[in-house]
């Protein structure tokens, strides 16, 4: 006897490479059974208190968003934790990992305790926290990686800045390796990118904006890969954007290095030309790159070089964006649009729906060694019901997130989340209109 039985669902399970109509039962918050076809009417185990007819909608593992910035603590006016979690639930996200660049910086075990405890009170998506790899994100001195690891940090990174110092990077990698935690790097040579406002190229020249060369990303990746060879530690490239960087990761994977990478929707859907009107909604970090780089990102997503897609969500308000392009704050809201924008890759036939959920769910969960990405019996019932083909218009003003700046304002998108479950509990259901 199940608590809930989903029938007539298009089951998507990247962990078993399943895409087919079937059924799934939940008991005590755990996936208790799943199968293709129809549940057996005679089988007592296939009966349930609640039967949900999915009517052909997809039933898939919840999204695991591995790159989210939270403004809470420190800048709650931009977006508080409750709003962030509510937005995540509505976006089909059952687990999200937050960067440590809060105020104060998450470079201390107690901060991790505090944030995860507060999140648990909302009963929403699972909130995970990255510890700062260096004290106060200074890049010069290792933070207490061991204590934060014990407190539950799922990985370490330096927020939105790069660990420039090779010695510090080597030590952080060694230390993370010792604790079997992944070290995540925002790859941008900060000297080479100093003052940079957008991708370097013909567009930056025409607009008179200072350029950030693509090489700024590849230089850090190349250096870090040498350090990975020295230390053997797990290394993850955050929001990869350039062909050179992707090529480097591809070579490293062939070599067998423990390297993974993620990217975000703007980098496979937009290019630098979007900046031509100085619209600050297109000011991102890393910057929107060339059309060739965009193609390289898609190739990387299709061939497995890039493991995951993250929202790269940044809470940013009007004051920070209503400025000339140069001094405006980089970043965009990403949570509300993550699923639909990823579906664009499926609609354009670059990837399959199963691969999309590998990128959105299975891979990030496995990189961070957390729950997610599977419908296998015995797993916690973190699920979404979604319809990848249902269209809507992206309007920042309609977002659940209080961060409303999106480079996709006014763009039509396809991909609707109907319901989100964590541990078998429904944390979101789209109200019927």
């Amino acid at each position: 006897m199940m608590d809930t039985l989903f029938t007539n669902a298009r089951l998507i399970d990247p962990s078993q490479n399943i895409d087919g109509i079937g059924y799934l039962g939940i008991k005590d918050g755990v996936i208790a059974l799943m199968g293709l076809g129809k549940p057996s009417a005679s089988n007592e185990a296939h009966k349930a208190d609640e039967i949900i007819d999915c009517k052909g909608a997809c039933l898939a593992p919840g999204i695991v968003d591995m790159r989210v910035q939270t403004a809470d603590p420190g800048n709650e006016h931009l977006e508080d934790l409750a709003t962030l979690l509510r937005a995540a639930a509505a976006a089909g996200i059952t687990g999200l990992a937050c960067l440590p660049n809060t105020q104060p910086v998450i470079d201390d075990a107690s901060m991790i305790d505090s944030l995860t405890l507060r999140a648990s009170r909302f009963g929403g998506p699972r909130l995970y926290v990255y510890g700062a790899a260096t004290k106060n994100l200074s890049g010069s001195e290792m933070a207490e990686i061991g204590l934060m690891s014990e407190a539950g940090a799922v990985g370490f990174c330096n927020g939105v800045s790069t660990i420039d110092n090779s010695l510090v990077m080597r030590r952080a990698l060694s230390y993370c390796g010792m604790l079997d935690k992944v070290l995540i790097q925002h790859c941008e040579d900060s000297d080479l990118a100093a003052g940079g406002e957008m991708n370097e190229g013909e567009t930056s020249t025409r607009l008179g904006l200072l350029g950030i060369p693509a090489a700024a990303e590849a230089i850090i990746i190349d250096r870090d890969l040498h350090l990975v060879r020295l230390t053997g530690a797990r290394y993850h490239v955050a929001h990869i954007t350039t062909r050179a960087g992707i090529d480097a990761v591809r070579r490293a994977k062939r070599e067998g290095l423990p390297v993974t990478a993620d990217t975000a929707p703007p980098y496979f859907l937009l290019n630098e030309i979007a900046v031509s009107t100085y619209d600050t909604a297109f000011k991102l970090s890393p910057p929107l790159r060339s059309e060739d780089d965009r193609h390289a990102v898609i190739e990387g997503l299709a061939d497995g070089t890039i493991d995951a897609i993250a929202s790269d969500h940044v809470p940013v308000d009007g004051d920070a964006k209503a400025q000339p392009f140069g001094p405006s704050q980089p970043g965009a809201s990403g949570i509300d649009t993550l699923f639909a924008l990823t579906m664009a890759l499926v609609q354009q036939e670059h990837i399959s729906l199963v691969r999309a959920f590998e990128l959105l769910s299975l891979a990030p969960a496995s990189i961070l060694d957390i729950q997610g990405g599977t419908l296998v019996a015995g797993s916690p019932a973190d699920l979404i019901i979604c319809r990848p083909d249902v269209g809507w218009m992206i309007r920042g003003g309609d977002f659940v997130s209080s961060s409303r700046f999106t480079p996709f304002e006014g763009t039509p998108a396809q991909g609707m989340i109907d319901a989100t479950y964590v541990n078998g509990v429904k944390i979101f259901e789209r109200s019927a209109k």
Partner: protein
Amino acid sequence: MIDKSSKTVASTDTSAAVALSSRHLLGIEGMSPLEIRALLDRGNHFADAIQNQDNDFAVSDVLKGKTIINLFYENSTRTRVSFELAAKRLGASVLNIAVAGSSVKKGETLLDTATTLNAMHPDILVIRHNCSGAAQLLSQHVDAAVINAGDGRHEHPTQALLDALTIRRRMGHIEGLKITICGDIANSRVARSNIQLLASLGAEVRLVCPATLLPAAIDQLGIDVFTNMEEGIYGADIVMMLRLQTERMAGTETPSQREYFNLFGLDQAKLMRAAPEALIMHPGPMNRGVEIDSATADDADKSLIRTQVEMGVAARMACLEAIASGIDKSRHAKAGKSGGAS
């Protein structure tokens, strides 16, 4: 000053304000050669009138009742005075906002300032700002027409127009001229506007620049780029020197000013490589001994630098008049649409 332009330049009706397709003047990019030529023709008329002290024309009231605010976020004497004089010659009321002592220093953003100024209903805002795109941003948030008096490293359209007017009055034409622009291209809005304008009017534009001050993919703008000054200046009819933008440089683009002058500074020896009658231009203010030596800058036969300043007023009169006439037309159109109700 010999003015050949009236003989050689086929011009349209120059007795009335130029009609521009845009309400604002934000950059040379996007302007048609026709619009540019019309503004130059009109500027030429104003220049004649100023030189002949023909006050019926050089001082008029076409901007009577119009309020113009000069909003300068960067220090400037020549451009601000030039705009002010141009506006006053046309009868406008001019307000200069000295940003250094204003609320901007107290943290007010550009858009806050825009909103405040907008509430005072000026007709034209002339803005100079250290950020590329600032003029465009302002234009999206005010009702006034906006004229870009220089935005960051992006454009300085009235400078390019006055440069072209200067060249045309001296040489009679722009098409076919070999024009070499030398110096700090990366940080120069003057260069960007001039490249667009001169190429659009059919000049052969070349750049000479240290590799470290060369913006990415500049060759894709369809111009020849040189890092050797002797080569780039060879046979040039016009040598346009740029200011080394020390205030916009991180300080490591060139090893020293001494070395810069040696390799890229204009002196009599390098000028020998240009065409025999070559003329020298500089948007000012000059760094003497850095990008140009004094003897060359002050060479009365070859230097157009003072003429450039003079043409600044005439070119800006043409721009202000064109923008004001656009404002009047759109107001008439609106009044017409609303059935003439007052």
